[in-house]
């Protein structure tokens, strides 16, 4: 069983996964510091919006893109944002802005709908988060993940590197603008080649701030395609197979007999990585 077929339906569903988010302003940050304008604004703001913004974010997208939208709204509302070092947190835990939002939601283990997170403009936690969460930085991180995935998959980054600048930007832009067809126009060159597959681009996240596991996993096991269960067994033999843990991605539990190459093709995030979260199983 080898040839992984591009499953259009699955892929579309994965892409279109959206999360409702409720972003609240940090109330502590709206103290009137020095300027009276700020006071007026805060009053004004509190009057109009009650410091809440509801939006829908794509699971495959990134937080800095959300920040962009937020800024737009806040500027329109005449709310001055002095510090553009925006960061988010969920229940006190700063959210890593270079992870996809879907991954963050699943990692947080929250079942809220909408996902209630707070936006901060000051006191950027430099110890916990990477600095300067701008859209350009997110783009750079995204592209580096793509190259990693390409390298792991084929053993060279030539496919990514050979993309024209326009194609590279198109990857990111189509992601930020939610254009499935445009994205897959480019991305198909990167993952559709079934020859020379080497290792699976895979990242495994464990709860409680465990370090991320990124191990070398080959696609085939003595000629036949590996299954997810095999892979997990290789990596976490204590946990798999057993009833203790389940692999989750994109908010769904994956069956262990999923072929890994099919999963890599269809269940990857926008950066062509499979991000698996290991959760305690709920029996």
């Amino acid at each position, binding site marked *: 069983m080898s040839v992984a077929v591009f*499953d259009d*339906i*699955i892929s579309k*569903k*994965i892409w*279109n*996964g*959206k*999360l*409702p988010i409720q972003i609240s302003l940090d109330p502590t940050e709206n103290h009137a510091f020095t300027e009276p304008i700020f006071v007026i604004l805060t009053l004004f703001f509190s009057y*109009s*919006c009650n410091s809440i*913004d*509801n*939006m*829908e974010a794509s699971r495959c997208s990134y937080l800095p893109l959300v920040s962009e939208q937020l800024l737009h*709204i806040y500027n*329109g*509302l*005449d709310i001055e944002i002095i510090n553009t070092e925006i960061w988010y947190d969920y229940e006190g835990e700063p959210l890593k802005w270079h992870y996809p939002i879907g991954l963050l939601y699943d990692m947080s283990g929250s079942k809220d*709908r*909408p996902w209630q997170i707070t936006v901060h403009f000051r006191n950027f936690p430099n110890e916990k988060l990477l600095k300067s969460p701008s859209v350009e930085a997110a783009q750079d991180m995204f592209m580096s993940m793509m190259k990693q995935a390409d390298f792991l998959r084929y053993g060279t980054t030539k496919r990514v590197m050979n993309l024209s600048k326009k194609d590279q930007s198109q990857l990111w832009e189509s992601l930020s603008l939610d254009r499935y067809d445009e994205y897959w126009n480019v991305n198909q060159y990167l993952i559709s080649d079934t020859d020379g597959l080497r290792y699976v681009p895979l990242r495994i996240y464990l709860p409680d701030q465990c370090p991320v596991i990124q191990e070398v996993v080959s696609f085939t096991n003595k000629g036949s395609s590996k299954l997810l269960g095999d892979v997990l067994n290789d990596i976490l033999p204590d946990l798999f197979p057993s009833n203790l843990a389940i692999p989750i991605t*994109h*908010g*769904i*539990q*994956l*069956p262990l*007999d*999923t*072929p890994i190459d*099919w999963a890599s093709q269809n*269940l990857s995030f926008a950066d062509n990585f499979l991000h698996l979260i290991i959760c305690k199983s709920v029996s």
Partner: protein
Amino acid sequence: MNYRDLILERLTIRNEKEHAFHGMIVANQKLVQKVLTLQTKEKQLEVVMKTTKIQNETLTQAAEYAKAQGSPEHQHRVAELDRRIHDLNEERAEMYKTQSENAQRLVHMNEQLQKASETEKHNSAEIKKLTASIKQLGTKCDLQIEQLREKDTAIQILQDEIAAIQLEITTIEERNKKLEKENAQLLQRWLDKMNQEAEKMNEATEFYENFLEQARNVGKTIRKTSGGKWIMGPSSSSEKKSDQRSRTPTVVLPVSPIKKMAISDGELFCIKASTTGSMFATGGSDKKLRVYDAKTGNATMALGGSLQTITSICFDSTDELVLGSSTDNSTRIWHLGTQRLRHTLTGHIGKVFAAQFTADSKRVVSGSHDRTLKVWDLQRGYCIRTIFTFSSCNDLTLVDVEGQTLVSGHLDNNIRLWDTRTGNGIKELTGVHNGQITSVSISPGGDTLLTNSRDNTLKMIDLRMYNIVATFQAPSYRNGANWSRSCFSPDMSYVAAGSADGTLHIWNTLTHNLEKTLKDHKGVMCGVSWSPIGDYLYTAETNKNVCIYNTAFQI
């Protein structure tokens, strides 16, 4: 179910849950957008309101202002008009100013114009004058040119004449030369003839003398009126007759003077018999050259003109001229016929002690204490040759009658012979004497020289061999003066010299013996001179006395 279906089912369930809020969120977003737009609009309206308010205010202000001031248009017009009035006033003022300036300038210009016209009149008058003068000058100039032209032609003519005359002169000169040559030739022939006649006469006289001898023995007295040999010049040396030692003397030794004279006025320096024997002359410190009659001894002339002492005297060959050399560095020549001074030969820078005529009387040689001998040309009147003689010359004599060779005796005891043509020395005779030479005299034959010196000797020197033929001395003979002159007798038989004590000494030239001494003078004897015809011997002493002795053959 296979994995795929499981996954699909799970995804669908997820989506149901998570997309529940989709509609609400969308609505929310829309509301937010609307709020934003409304807010921006509100802001814009506020801005507009503010600007309109301000505008309103300004307009009301302007309206009020306009009401107060009348319409702004009026304002403008009034202001403009005011300005224009002001400008026009200024312009007018300026115009007045310029007008006054111009008036002034006009006046000034008028003045200048007047002045200019005056000067112009003045100038034109001057110009007229100048043109007139130019015309005059032009005509004068033309005249001058004409005159010049005439002069040029005259010059041309004169030059042509000169050329013609010069040609004539040259032809005449040539003719003259030819004539001279002919003359010379004729003279020569005549002389030859005369010589022949003389010879014949000599032979006749010889014969006559022989006859006389015989007659003497018989006891007759025949007085010779003229005797001696006649040697006339210019004659070639081949005709010169040499002395014959064996001749019998034709002079006789004097016994006593026939006359004694005292010449007053100064010391006597020299005495000389004339060439013809008709007179003799003395010269001395009285600056006068006195000429006396040969026989009587009466003074015939006293020739003046010399500025100082006359040191030597010479008569020319025809006794027309006499010269006297003087210590005033000059030699003077007088013409005996007119008794007038003919020439003064100046040029020596020392005392002239001796001078002689050449036989043709055209030249004079003089010797001086400035160590030179000078040859003078009497026709031209100036010195034609100066011979430097190294030593002051005391006496000189010409060897030959043409005046080619000259002998001089010097202060340095030497005797020198010179060629007068070239001025070169021919011979220097040293060691002849031990004292300065005081006299040189040539024998009548011209080949023997008699020298007298302060070493108290007289020597006869043969001029061909330059050897001393004879020495004459005597214990009583002492040369008393630096210019003491001695001489031969005309027949070469005797030599006479005066001594310092006044004794006249006569030696025989053949025997070299002292033959006679005659003491008729008291003082130093300065000179003796034998008349060329042999009849008289004249002696002089410095103390003004002169004695005349008769030396003619007589019984």
